[in-house]
C-alpha cells in the first residue's frame, strides 16, 4: 500500500494486466506518442500522461499508436476483442464519441445479442470526461447517461485512485464491453492504493459516509464534492450518508434504495446534462420502489441544460459545487 495518484493507479492497473495477459493491448492516439518521429518514442504517454512508460515494457506491438481516426480505433478494438485479443482502447476525450459511436452503439454493444449469445467481446474503452479544465463545449462533457442507456455495454466511473485501479483491472478482465470513464480533474488526486493487483466487482456501490439526516448519491467526481459537504454538515450537527455508485451499468439498485431509506431525504449529484441523466433515472427508481420513505421531494444537482461554457466564471456557475450541494441539502434538512 502506498500513496498514488489516480493517474498512477490507472497506469499501474494497465501495467499489471499487460504483464499478466499477453492478449491485452493498448490502442489509441498518442498512447505512446512520437511514432514515426526522430525524437522521443514515449513522447506523451497519452495526452495527459496516463499511459506513459508502458511502451518500454511492451513495445509498439502492444502499445499501438494510431492515426486520429476514432471510428477505425473503436472498430479495430471491437473486432480484435471478438477474435481473441483483450484490447484497451483509448478515446482521448469522451466528446469524440460523436465521430465513432456507431461502432459501440450498433456493433460492439449488440454483438452478443444479435449473434444469439455466441459473441464474447472483452473490450475496455478508457476515456476522459468532465468539466473544470476550461476546455469548453467539445472537451468537457460527461455523456455517461448515453452509454448507460445502451444495453450490452457496462459503464464504470471511478471516483478515487483505489477504485480506479481495482475497477480498471475488473474492466480488463471482464468479458463484456466496458466504458471506463476517467474524470480529468481527478488525475492528480491521491489516495492509498495497494501495490498488488486486485479487482473491484461491478454493480457494488460504495458507502463513503454513513449518516441519518440526509443521503447524497454521487458518481465520479461528484463523490468528493458530496463527501466534503457531508463533513461540513457534520460540524453543524447533521450526519449524511454518501453513496458512490461506482458503476452506472450495472447499477446497484439495492444500495441506492437502502441509502434512500436510511434518511428519506435525498440529494443526487450528477455532473451530466440534466435531462434524462443518471439523477433523473435514480430519482425515478426511488419513487417507484421506495416512495414511502420520502420525507421531502428528491433534489437533483446537475448543470443547466446548456453546452459546457468556456469562460471561467461561466463554467464555475455551470458545474455542481460544494456550495450548491450544501445549499440544496439545507432546503430539505
Amino acid at each position, binding site marked *: 500500500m502506498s500513496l498514488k495518484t489516480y493517474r498512477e493507479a490507472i497506469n499501474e492497473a494497465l501495467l499489471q494486466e499487460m504483464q499478466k495477459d499477453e492478449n491485452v493491448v493498448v490502442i489509441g492516439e498518442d498512447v505512446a506518442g512520437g511514432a514515426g518521429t526522430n525524437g522521443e518514442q514515449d513522447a506523451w504517454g497519452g495526452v495527459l500522461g496516463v499511459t506513459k512508460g508502458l511502451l518500454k515494457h511492451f513495445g509498439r506491438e502492444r502499445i499501438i499508436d494510431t*492515426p486520429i481516426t476514432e471510428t*477505425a480505433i473503436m*472498430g479495430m*478494438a471491437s*473486432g*480484435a476483442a471478438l477474435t481473441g485479443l483483450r484490447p484497451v482502447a483509448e478515446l482521448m476525450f469522451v466528446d469524440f464519441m460523436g465521430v465513432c459511436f456507431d461502432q459501440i452503439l450498433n456493433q460492439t454493444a449488440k454483438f452478443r445479442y444479435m*449473434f444469439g449469445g*455466441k459473441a464474447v467481446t472483452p473490450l475496455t474503452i478508457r476515456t476522459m470526461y468532465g468539466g473544470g479544465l476550461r476546455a469548453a463545449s467539445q472537451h468537457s462533457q460527461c455523456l455517461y447517461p448515453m452509454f448507460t442507456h445502451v444495453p450490452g455495454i457496462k459503464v464504470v466511473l471511478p471516483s478515487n485512485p483505489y477504485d480506479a485501479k481495482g475497477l480498471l483491472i475488473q474492466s480488463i478482465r471482464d*468479458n463484456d464491453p466496458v466504458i471506463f470513464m476517467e474524470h480529468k480533474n481527478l488525475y492528480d488526486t491521491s489516495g492509498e492504493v495497494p501495490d498488488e493487483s486486485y479487482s473491484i466487482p461491478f454493480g457494488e456501490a460504495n458507502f463513503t459516509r454513513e449518516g441519518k439526516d440526509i443521503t447524497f448519491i454521487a458518481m465520479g467526481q461528484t463523490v468528493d464534492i458530496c463527501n466534503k459537504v457531508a463533513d461540513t454538515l457534520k460540524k453543524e450537527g447533521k450526519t449524511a450518508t454518501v453513496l458512490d455508485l461506482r458503476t452506472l451499468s450495472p447499477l446497484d439498485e439495492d444500495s441506492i434504495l437502502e441509502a434512500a431509506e436510511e434518511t428519506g431525504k435525498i440529494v443526487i449529484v450528477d455532473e451530466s446534462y440534466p435531462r434524462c441523466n443518471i439523477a433523473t433515472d435514480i430519482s425515478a427508481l426511488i419513487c417507484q420502489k421506495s416512495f414511502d420513505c420520502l420525507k421531502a421531494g428528491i433534489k437533483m444537482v446537475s448543470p443547466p441544460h446548456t453546452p459546457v461554457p468556456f469562460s471561467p466564471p461561466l463554467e464555475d456557475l455551470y458545474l455542481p459545487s460544494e456550495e450548491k450541494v450544501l445549499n440544496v441539502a439545507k432546503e430539505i434538512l
Partner: protein
Amino acid sequence: MQLNREELLKAYQGMCLIREFDDAVHYEFAADAMPGFVHLYVGEEASAMGICMNLNEKDTIASTHRGHGHCIAKGCDVTDMMKELYGKKDGICGGKGGSMHIADLSKGMLGANGIVGGGPPIVLGAALTYKTKKTNNVSVGFFGDGASNQGSISESMNMAAVLKLPAIFVCEDNGYAESTASEYAVGGKILDRGKAFGLDSHEVDGDNFFEVYEISKHVIENARNGKGPALLHIKTSKVYGHFEGDAISYRTKEENERIKNDEDPLKIFKMKVTEAGLLELEQLEKIESEAKSRIKTAIDESKKAEFPTSKDLLTDVYIKY
C-alpha cells in the same frame, strides 16, 4: 486455370446454393411468409465464392446488409440461416439477429451488418489479432459502392495501411446505392481511393468467377505473407432491387434483361467450364437440382421450427450483469 475438378465443383455448388437460397427468399417474402426485410445477392454470387474459396475456416469476413451470399460462401449452414430469416429459436442467431445480423463465429463469419460501412472497421480488429498473434490469417471486409462513401471505409483503409494489417477490402459495386446510381454518388473512382491509401488495388469483373478467384488469391496470399492490405473493386450487378418490395423503377427494362441474360455469373461459369471440357453439363445440372432440394428442405424445416419464447427475451445481452 489452377482449380482442380473438385474445386470447380465446389465453386458451382456454392454459387448455386446462394442462388437458390436467395431466389427462394424472394418468393417466400413476396408470399408474406417471412418477417422483416431482406436484401438479396442474386447476380453477385461469383464475388462471394471467388473470394471465400481462398479463405480457410480460421480466416474471417465481415459482411453487409446483403449478406446471405457471403455467409453461405464462408460455410454457414443454410437451414440454420433460413430458420433465422423466419425468426425461429433454432436459427443461426437464435432468432435475435435476422437477415441483417447473421453471424457464425465458428466459421469465421463475423456478422452481416445493418449499418452501411459498419463491417470494415471490425475487420481491422480481426486483422490486428492475426498480426499480434502471428497466425498468418486474413480478414476480409465486404462493403458496397454506397458504403464506399462512408468515412468508416476511408478510415479503415488508412489504418490497415498504417499498421500493415492482413485486411482485404472488397467493394461490391452493383451500380446502385439504394435507388441512386454509383456514377452519381461516387466522386472520382473507388479504385483510386484504395491507391491513395497505398493499398494494392484491383478492378475485377464480378461476373467472372475465375477472375475474382485469381485476383483475390493474389491479394490474400500477399496479406498472409505480411505484405499488407488490398482493395478489390468488384464490378457486379444484382438481379433484384435494393430490398424485397423495391419496384426497381430506376432501372430500365433493357438493363434488367441484360443483367439476367448477359451478366449472370452462373451462366458464364457454366459456359466456360463446359466449353473448356472441365465439367460436364450433366454434372452441373445435378448440382443445380441438389441445391434446389437443399433449400426446399431448409424452408420446410424452418416453417415447422419453433419461435423463441419469453424465456429468450432477456438472455444474451451480457455474459454477466
